[in-house]
């Protein structure tokens, strides 16, 4: 049995069935890319896996650490070791990144305000951040800014990866982490993710375009169309998509348009 198993998952949003039976096994140490055109159900998959209340599970299972996580609240999934880097990270006014990160780390450690030994101390916290932030090319001023407020597209995505780095998940879902990024940001973000790769981490990269896969090499590639996987393969499938696009299924390119590359 794989470390993380999605079994025949069917999901609806506002009464419309979006995922129509998705099955996927991810082991720690592996990087899987889920690719698909617009409207194929990629974001539905990522949000459902993390437990967003607007996505209704019709049937199926997601097994992680011997549990079907689909009944768990998002925070319980996070505590089990899951992480979702959002495509559109949310602004939380008045809460500094530093406060947010520390609260999240403490939550993960099971600190409930009583046993202070479970809370991260300032020194440890600073040390942890310093390292990761230098890889992501983020300076200290970032920590006193409010969560995602006034962040550029690149800053938001780097902030997501920073959260991933400090929360040390075992299964990470990166939802369109490359979208809206300039080429430098893609590189910094990819470097940070590659640094985390290893036997303790399974990654699910959800992306429309093949661009990010040049930096984070997947072990497996799956093509999601219309709520179902239509093809799975090794990294060569990404190259194939790069050339052919999703034209076999829909009229849309897999390669990022020039305008996006340049921005």
């Amino acid at each position: 049995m794989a470390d993380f198993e999605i079994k025949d998952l069917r999901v609806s949003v506002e009464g419309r069935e979006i995922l129509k039976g998705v099955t996927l096994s991810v082991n720690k140490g592996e990087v899987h890319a889920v690719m698909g055109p617009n409207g194929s159900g990629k974001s539905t998959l990522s949000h459902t896996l993390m437990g967003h209340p607007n996505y209704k599970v019709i049937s199926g299972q997601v097994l992680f650490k011997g549990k079907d996580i689909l009944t768990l609240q998002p925070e319980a999934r996070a505590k089990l070791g899951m992480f979702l880097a959002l495509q559109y990270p949310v602004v939380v006014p008045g809460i500094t990144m530093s406060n947010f990160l520390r609260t999240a780390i403490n939550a993960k450690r099971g600190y409930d305000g009583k046993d202070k030994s479970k809370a991260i101390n300032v020194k440890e916290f600073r040390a942890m951040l310093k390292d990761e932030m230098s890889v992501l090319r983020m300076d200290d001023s970032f920590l006193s800014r409010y969560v995602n407020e006034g962040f550029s597209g690149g800053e938001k995505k780097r902030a997501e990866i920073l959260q991933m780095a400090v929360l040390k998940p075992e299964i990470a879902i990166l939802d369109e982490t490359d979208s809206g990024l300039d080429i430098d940001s893609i590189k910094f973000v990819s470097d940070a993710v590659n640094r985390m790769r290893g036997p303790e981490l399974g990654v699910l990269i959800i992306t429309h375009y093949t661009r990010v896969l040049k930096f984070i090499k997947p072990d497996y590639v799956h093509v999601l169309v219309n709520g179902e996987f239509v093809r799975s393969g090794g990294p060569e499938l990404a190259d194939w998509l790069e050339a052919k696009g999703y034209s076999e299924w829909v009229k849309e390119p897999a390669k990022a348009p020039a305008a996006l590359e340049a921005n």
Partner: protein
Amino acid sequence: MATVIPRIDVGDNYKEKYGFFDPEKFVFKAKRGLNPEVVKEISWMKNEPEWMTKFRLRALQTWDKKEMPTWGADLSTIDFQNIYYYLKSTEKQGKTWEDVPADIKNTFDRLGVPQAERKFLAGVAAQYESEVVYHSLHKELEAKGVIFTDTDSALRDYPDLFKQYFGTIIPPGDNKMAALNSAVWSGGSFIYVPKGVKVEIPLQAYFRINAENMGQFERTLIICDEDSFVHYIEGCTAPIYTTDSLHSAVVEIIVKRGARCRYTTVQNWSTNVYNLVTKRAVAYGDATMEWVDGNLGSQITMKYPSIYLMEPGAKGDVLSVAFAGKGQHQDAGGKAVHVAPNTSSNIVSKSISKNGGRTSYRGLVKVYPGAKNSKSFVRCDALLLDDQSRSDTYPTTEVDEPQVRIGHEATVSKVSDEQLFYLQSRGITKAEAETMIVNGFIEPFTKELPIEYAVELNRLIQLEMIGSVG
């Protein structure tokens, strides 16, 4: 400043920390109800000069004639004849901590007053029931001529200074509740800061009401002489009672040329208290007045800190936060009255409604003819935590001078599913996430508070939030 969300036990801990009360122990207990005899008795008990007795009696007549305000929150259930107007819990004031009676000390210990004092406070005047029982002022300040005492003592010890200013900013005829306070006032703080003296550490009064059916009518008077500075802080927690309680204070502040005064309040009355307060300051040339006002608890609060900008260069800020939970109505805001040219005001109001609670912003910006180049900006932000809760805005702008800059912005927002999901996906529980969002929302307010108060406020918000979940 990083706002750390403190975590504490809830439930019975709340009651222990904020809801306890000691057995009532009174030297004197007035009868319930309001009439000239009660007013005379209060004045007699306090051994006041005749002018004050007469002032009180005239105020009572004014109170009789005035109608209850009907334009704001519903005050129809207040029974003025079922309230004690004066209680004196110890015979005389303690001058040092050792003089304070043990049971009262016990109360303060639980509130953390002496500790707070040891840490950083310049002086403490804590009001226990109607009389100030403990008061101290560091010698350094005394040497500079700063007066920080309770208002009753000020009447006795500084009669001329007192009479010169008392009732000049808020006369008894101002409104019905001001008239009531003028008739039965007791306690409160009196501060005088001489010319050029800057009081660098905040002066604090930590008080609470602790008797059932007892009105709290404290009267505060602050005079900042030219080029002086003072920051006065009052914080309240109140015990939980089953019958209605009335708190009606009057706060008068005079900020003379070039002086600056900041008045910070964070109060958390128990949810049966009617909190009807009149607060007003006058600011003269190049003076600055700042109201920082946080309102939690109470059944009904009506409070609109005001600033009269009397001379050129005067500046006024009102920063307020209101939190209304189930059955609560926070009707709060601010007033800025521009009398002179080149004056400026800034009113920022933040309100949170939860579990059917109601918040209202009520404000006035008035610019008199000739107050050229006046600037005023009003911003009110409301956060609704559910569909049952309510928020209204009642801004009034009266501008009789064309050459001014007036701005008003209002927003109403809800805690979004996306925000909650985002925080939850990082391992934070829904209740904690809501608390975080609320604390973030009021962060512009919290960051103006001394750290102890910021922590206390965040803690109170957390209690309000978690207490009403599920």
